[in-house]
């Protein structure tokens, strides 16, 4: 018995290590690259040569000559993603409440539309928006990205929240209504506190998606005024035209990965339940 359970433990330790390598290796790889000096980049080794590890790449993008490029992109990414997430979650909360709770014609239409929008090829939206945004002056502005980002964040928010809201014990709302609360008060006082965790989880998932965007970012911006990090990374150039921006890009990549890792570490359970309950039900 003890023998088989030890064996079991060893087996699980191996499996766990394998999964960890799978999940983290590319991150560690770019982390290692971010500490390499330009001359060390071509060493053909995974780690920086001993003694040659340097933080100069981070200095370059945070306080050095690439600072303007990276920090403005970081500010754009954070601002635009947060606003797009916030709007999507507010609208989706109202929408999902109606879907989970009220009886109205077209409920299925709303859900189907959300589904259709989420599988829509982003590039098909970009071409007409590119043209339109140039005409009406939204090209290369925050708003010009926030609006199309809603096409990414709204559908998944609606689905995830509708799934969350269906699991809420709605008797509480009825109880509140019996006690004299209106539908709106019942929603606000009895349901919102219960629904808040679901809303928060949805916000994290929506933020991931907005944070990840690349197509809108490179197509609908042209300067530091609105260009988000993924797009800025693609257009990074080295200190001189003969020097590849490998180190600077790696350092920037690590910085924008930190918030993702933190969110995942803190809210792993919620994110998993949000993704699984929102996407598949039977």
């Amino acid at each position: 018995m003890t023998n088989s359970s030890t064996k079991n433990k060893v087996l699980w330790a191996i499996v766990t290590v394998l999964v960890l390598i799978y999940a983290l290796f590319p991150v560690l790889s770019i982390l290692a690259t971010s500490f390499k000096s330009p001359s060390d980049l071509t060493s053909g080794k995974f780690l920086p040569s001993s003694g040659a590890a340097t933080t100069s790449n981070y200095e370059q993008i945070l306080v050095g000559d690439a600072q303007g490029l990276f920090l403005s992109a970081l500010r754009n990414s954070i601002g635009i993603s947060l606003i797009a997430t916030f709007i999507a979650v507010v609208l989706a909360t109202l929408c999902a409440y109606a879907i989970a709770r009220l009886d109205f014609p077209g409920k299925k239409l709303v859900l189907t539309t959300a589904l259709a929008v989420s599988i829509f090829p982003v590039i098909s939206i970009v071409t007409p928006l590119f043209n339109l945004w140039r005409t009406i002056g939204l090209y290369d502005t925050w708003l010009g990205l926030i609006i199309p980002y809603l096409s990414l964040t709204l559908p998944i928010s609606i689905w995830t929240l509708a799934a969350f809201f269906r699991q809420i014990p709605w008797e509480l709302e009825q109880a509140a209504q019996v006690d004299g609360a209106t539908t709106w008060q019942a929603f606000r006082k009895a349901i919102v506190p219960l629904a808040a965790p679901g809303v928060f989880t949805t916000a994290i998932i929506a933020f991931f998606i907005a944070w990840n965007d690349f197509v809108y970012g490179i197509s609908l911006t042209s300067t530091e005024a609105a260009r988000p990090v993924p797009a800025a990374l693609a257009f990074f150039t080295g200190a001189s035209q003969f020097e590849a921006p490998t180190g600077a890009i790696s350092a920037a990549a690590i910085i924008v990965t930190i918030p993702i890792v933190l969110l995942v570490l803190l809210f792993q359970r919620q994110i998993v339940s949000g993704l699984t309950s929102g996407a598949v039900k039977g």
Partner: protein
Amino acid sequence: MTSAIPAKTTTASSTEPGPRLSRDDKGTKTRKAPKQYSDRVRAERRLGWILAGPAFIIMLLVTLYPILQAIYESLFKFRLTAPGEREFIGLGNYAVILSDPVWWSGLWTTVFITVVTVLVELVLGFALALVMHKALKSVRGLLRTAILVPYGIITVVSAFAWFYAFDINSGYINSWFAWLPGIDENLNWFAQGGTALFVIMASEIWKTTPFISLLLLAGLAQVPDELTEAAKVDGATWWEQMRKVIIPNMKAAIMVAVLFRALDAFRIFDNVFIMTNGAYGTEVLSLLAYRQSISRLEIGLGSAVSVLLFLCVLLICFVAIKLFKVDLAGSQGGK
């Protein structure tokens, strides 16, 4: 109104008690009840649309409107740098695209990437889902946290991570795997289609397998334990349990996961853009559309590519739903 009912009832009972009364009673009910009911229903419907309406309208505005605009613009010969020469040419752009080998090679590359990545992800994702499902409590949280890192990471970051690892200048893969036939320090992975696609697909698979494995995990959790136990008692091997009990019972989840991933893979853009920018036969349809409209400002042609891409996605959906009977909305919209 309230006084009328007892009056009527009394007259009814005084003349012909039984049938008259019940008929009258029924009559008033059907006349009155729907009105009360429909007030409530109407209020609920109105509230429903007040709450759901804004999200619904915004979704339509950000997708339906642009695609209609794209369809309209695809009918014109229109280059942004020469707005004066805008000219209606009907389906001319489509004829140009469909007779160009660039479109077809882009289509095959996209289909190839979609099929390979989805198949690999299905196997790998299923293995990961099984691991997470069976994992001891002590490591379950750790495993799920690790799995979520690729899910959350920016695709462009993943693309750079894989690119730099394989790159002939900054990479280490060549020196690590030099013992394998065909790999040496002079192998430039991004100078020919096959090897470039390999790295592009590796990055895509790494980044998106967690999503598919979480969907499959949800499906696994719905397979009743009694079924697996019963199969075990009957002496079924592990493989038989998988094939006869577990997989048939989570077919719906597998179908949904495959469809979602296939549609997502079909839109692949970021990895290709970063690693090869479409060189050496790695150009995919999204990149083709991007190059036409954003880089070359050929709005007409670019719109036509966008519309064709959209039609491909519709076709995949249609085939999946009709042929494989994937029920996407039913599971959620059933209420």
